[in-house]
């Protein structure tokens, strides 16, 4: 890549954890959260970073932002080693941690922004301009005087995104920015991020468990599992690798025998007048829908996206319901 803005070479992070194993007995273990991870991101790219729970996504973001120091390997953002020159890099990056706010909890939203204005030494004119733009795009006008703790989750998330962008960062890290948001809020956040990346060429790295985030935003996806990068490429390719399927839910006027759909689409479930059809995620639903609408008395229909965990699980060839269970001991090598 011509301009590697973010560069990781064999980066690893090992956490030493102590666990009580019995009365007065403690066991020290090393958890390898990130394992010889290498990738580069060019300036202006928008990359989705996905993987099952505990895969090491947040740990990677924490290393990129300088919150955590890597246990090994080489990591550079804009040529800077984040954990060594944290405050210098902070001027050039924006961070949104979906799980917690960077805003001052007890103060009105606008107070946080005013403080950031001074803290980041944003020139007055630029601050005004950015604030006005962000307030409009993210719909914050009525929320500016509300203490942050009184904001709803979606409102707070929008407030956090604005806070991360007041100083025109070159790179924006988002750790689950759409977690817990309703459909409208998600759409708003996505549209905003898309514009940001298109118009300002801000480099964006985002983690999510919502495949639609990736579908609508990222041309490139990186999949991490047990600390290792297992896929890096286009989303379509991920679907191919994972042979993932979308589901078309069809409501017919009355109970009918299973729809005779053109292969590879097929009916996977029938419940009264409602039928579920699976078809490859890499194919358009339009043809299938047209075909059914022409031949069957259709009342309603909807398309369900494949669950990201299911896609990854299939790709990793493991059962879909394991991501929550603790990673196997092989992932926890004791050094």
């Amino acid at each position, binding site marked *: 890549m011509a301009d590697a803005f973010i560069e990781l070479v064999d980066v690893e992070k090992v956490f030493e954890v102590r666990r009580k194993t019995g009365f007065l007995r403690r066991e020290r273990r090393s958890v390898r959260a990130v394992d010889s991870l290498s990738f580069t991101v060019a300036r202006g790219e928008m990359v989705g970073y996905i993987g099952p729970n505990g895969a090491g996504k947040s740990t990677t973001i924490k290393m990129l932002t300088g919150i955590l120091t890597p246990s090994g390997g080489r990591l550079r953002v804009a040529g800077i080693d984040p954990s060594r020159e944290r405050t*210098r890099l902070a001027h050039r990056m924006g961070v949104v941690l979906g799980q917690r706010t960077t805003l001052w909890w*007890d103060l009105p939203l606008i107070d946080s922004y005013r403080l950031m204005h001074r803290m980041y030494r944003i020139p007055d004119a630029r601050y005004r301009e950015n604030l006005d733009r962000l307030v409009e795009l993210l719909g914050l006008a009525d929320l500016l005087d509300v203490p942050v703790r009184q904001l709803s989750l979606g409102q707070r998330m929008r407030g956090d995104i604005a806070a991360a962008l007041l100083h025109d960062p070159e790179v924006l890290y988002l750790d689950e920015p759409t977690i817990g948001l309703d459909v409208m809020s998600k759409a708003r956040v996505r549209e905003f991020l898309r514009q940001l990346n298109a118009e300002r060429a801000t480099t964006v790295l985002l983690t999510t468990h919502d495949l639609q985030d990736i579908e609508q935003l990222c041309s490139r996806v990186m999949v991490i599992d047990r600390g290792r990068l297992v896929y890096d490429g286009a989303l379509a390719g991920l679907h191919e690798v994972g042979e993932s399927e979308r589901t078309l839910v069809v409501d017919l006027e009355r109970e009918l025998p299973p729809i005779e759909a053109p292969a590879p689409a097929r009916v996977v479930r029938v419940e009264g007048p409602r039928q579920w059809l699976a078809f490859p995620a890499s194919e358009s639903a339009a043809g299938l829908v047209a075909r059914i609408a022409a031949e069957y008395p259709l009342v309603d229909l909807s398309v369900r996206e494949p669950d990201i965990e299911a896609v990854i699980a299939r790709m990793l060839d493991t059962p879909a319901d394991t991501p929550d269970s603790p990673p196997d001991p092989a992932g926890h090598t004791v050094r």
Partner: protein
Amino acid sequence: MAWGRSRPVEGLRAYRLIAGMWIRSTLTYRASFALTVCGNLLLSGLDFVAILLMFAQVDALGGWTLPEVALLYGLSVTAFGIAQLAFGSVASLGGRVRDGSFDTLLVRPVPVLAQVAADRFALRRLGRGVQGSVVLGWALVAVDVDWGVVKVLLVPVTVVCGAVIFGSLFVAGGAFQFLAQDASEVQNAFTYGGTTLLQYPPTVFGRDLVRGVTFVLPLAFANWVPAAYLLGRPYPLGLPEGAAFAAPLVAVVCAAAAGAVWRAGLRSYRSTGS
């Protein structure tokens, strides 16, 4: 951008910004602010009332008269009040480390210590320092001292050095919470315990305790030693003549040690899993 500016300058600037914001936000509720300051003043005055009550029964405490003990009290409480105003918030670091919200401080472009210290800057804590300096003012008038230039200068120098020594204790205690997140009790024992201890003459304590307070946690330089010089009393532990003027040196060493402990604590921070 922050290049070329030294970290202490950056830290002070950030401290001023954050503290300023908290002050503005507390002052929006003037009445409630005035009430808490008064409450604070009264509450923190209680320990001096205890000393007064004691002197209603006896003429001297460990050989020291009321104005002399008041001098100890004034020096200790004023220095402590300043340190607590500036660094008291560091005591609540443990909670932020435990719940991981400390992460958010690390992504901002200013020194973390300034952010932690200025967080929820509480102007109401002024009460402690004000009350201490009132007692100190009275004591300075009431004690029987031959004031010369050196002795007059020694008073403010002692207060400043005492504040630095107590401040170092707050910072080091806070840094300890990176390792043990519920250590704020331990820290309180040293800071609040320390200031209470110093309110009484060294002569009422055992030799080992006085040794500890002089050589291990050098709180003695915040008032016992300089006060002994002012009053022409023998130094605790038979310290050399110049000991009263060693306070600035002790303060610098304390601050440097606290800085090192803080950096070590910060390095050991490892965030949380979620």
